[in-house]
């Protein structure tokens, strides 16, 4: 292992710092991207390429400050003579390989993208679909092809479900494609029947529906919180779990998992505590109001536990180890929780220090087994690489 400052894999209890067999570490939120958005232009149809060259890509934002360096960890970008707004880190495979995949012995990393979360809230659904195709082609060529540890969550715009389905059909059977990636910022929560053709396509191709913060309050999306527009980024972030709650409740109540019984949803980067309260609250509500959604055959919490997986970053930080143990128990973490790092952002969680005091069995569930079930990883076989689904 290379010399390194700061945390290292050997520091965690139960962590051997050696690759284990068959799979020890699956990271369900690793952001790859482009260095500069112009790198996508060769992948765009000529009409959009010309417009983008003349006017920029015009992906909508919500106007909040995040943190400098495009929210990257400053130890990865500082000291390299890069100007503050330079996005060059996004396409740096070698950096990711050296400082993340190799360093922590990541067996599989789900590439969750970066720039394309805004496509779903662009007014023009054709341009949105073209951007997603371009980004996916770029990702398959420049990232996926370089490392067989990569699994890909393809970018899809929900604004035209027909084109979303076409993109899923185009790439969904590629052996490394295991998911689609969507933002939490939407016009309607994801249980709405408008989206069902997309879920049907994912179900057919056995792709996970990934949901990740992005676009709250941007473009055509609703405001970043149910109460409206907060003033600061920190407020949107503090209120972020309600986005996860709204989508999870909607997916469950509108019967998506009755229609598509094998569909799995991954909710990344929204914390975890919300799922505990939501399970309790949904079950209580359903016992009183069951006749409003009579197509549900089980307690709402049972759908969540079976169909929704929750990324571990940012990991909840209760006040004491006892509180954390209770929360892990109430979350049914052995079923619902998967490790996500959010590489390479400032708020990332490394695999070693975030999870102290887990039993070896639970550690293996969170860091590998649940994600293997989710993403269809059978582990390195005799021939190595990703086993077929």
């Amino acid at each position, binding site marked *: 292992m290379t010399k390194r*400052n700061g*945390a290292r894999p050997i520091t965690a209890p139960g962590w051997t710092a050696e690759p284990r067999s068959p799979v020890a570490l699956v990271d369900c939120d690793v952001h790859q991207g482009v260095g500069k958005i112009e790198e996508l232009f060769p992948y765009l149809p000529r009409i959009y390429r010309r417009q983008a060259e003349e006017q920029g890509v015009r992906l909508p934002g919500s106007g909040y400050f995040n943190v400098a360096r495009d929210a990257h960890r*400053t130890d*990865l970008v500082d*000291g390299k003579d890069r100007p503050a707004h330079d996005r060059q880190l996004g396409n740096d495979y070698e950096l990711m390989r050296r400082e993340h995949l190799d360093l922590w012995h990541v067996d599989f990393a789900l590439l969750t993208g970066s720039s394309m979360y805004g496509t779903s809230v662009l007014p023009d659904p054709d341009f949105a679909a073209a951007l997603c195709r371009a980004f996916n082609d770029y990702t398959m060529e420049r990232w996926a092809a370089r490392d067989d540890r990569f699994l890909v969550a393809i970018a899809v715009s929900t604004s035209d479900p027909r084109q979303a389905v076409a993109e899923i059909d185009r790439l969904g059977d590629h052996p490394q494609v295991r998911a689609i990636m969507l933002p939490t910022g939407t016009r309607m929560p994801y249980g709405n029947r408008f989206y069902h053709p997309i879920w049907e396509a994912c179900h057919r191709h056995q792709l996970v529906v990934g949901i990740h913060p992005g676009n709250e309050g941007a473009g055509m999306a609703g405001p970043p919180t149910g109460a409206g527009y907060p003033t600061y980024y920190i407020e949107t972030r503090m209120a972020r779990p309600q986005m996860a709650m709204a989508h999870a409740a909607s997916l469950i109540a509108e019967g998506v998992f009755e229609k598509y019984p094998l569909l799995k949803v991954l909710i990344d980067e929204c914390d975890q505590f919300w799922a505990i309260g939501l399970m309790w609250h949904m079950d209580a509500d359903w016992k009183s109001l069951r006749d409003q959604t009579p197509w549900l055959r089980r307690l709402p919490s049972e759908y969540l536990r079976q169909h929704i997986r929750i990324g571990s970053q940012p990991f909840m930080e209760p006040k004491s180890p006892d509180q954390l143990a209770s929360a892990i128990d109430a979350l049914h973490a052995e079923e619902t929780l998967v490790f996500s790092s959010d590489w390479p952002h*400032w*708020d990332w969680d*490394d695999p070693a220090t975030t999870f102290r005091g887990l039993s070896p069995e639970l550690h293996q569930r969170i860091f590998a087994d649940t994600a293997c079930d989710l993403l269809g990883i059978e582990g390195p076989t005799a021939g190595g690489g990703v086993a077929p689904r």
Partner: protein
Amino acid sequence: MVVCPEAELPAGSRRLVVPFRGRAGIGVFNVNGRYHALRNLCPHKLGPLCTGRVSGRVVAAAPPSTDASEIEVVQKGEILICPWHLWEFEISNGRCLVDPRVRVKTYPVRIEDGFVVVYARQSDLPTQPGGALAGTA
């Protein structure tokens, strides 16, 4: 441990030294002519603290909706921000500004014969000021 000649650590600069291979190392800072050394391991989640940004502390007397509000930056150059999760630390004493229970380990620093010298332990300090160099880089 000899870090470097005094002239190579001017005010506002830092050096990262790794006394033993594989260890996190120690960050040595010159803050307005005073020298400080901190362990390069964030007590929060073991991030490489001393590679973080050196900055000031942003303070406000009151919320911006009041007339008394003014946002200021104080302690310029005296605050270290961990690149992982952005917790703030006072370089001079290792105190964490967002959690008073948290403190990063500090080490004594001396200038000896024009060199910046860091001591791993308080007990290693020479009894007489300006004594012989202790340890090697």
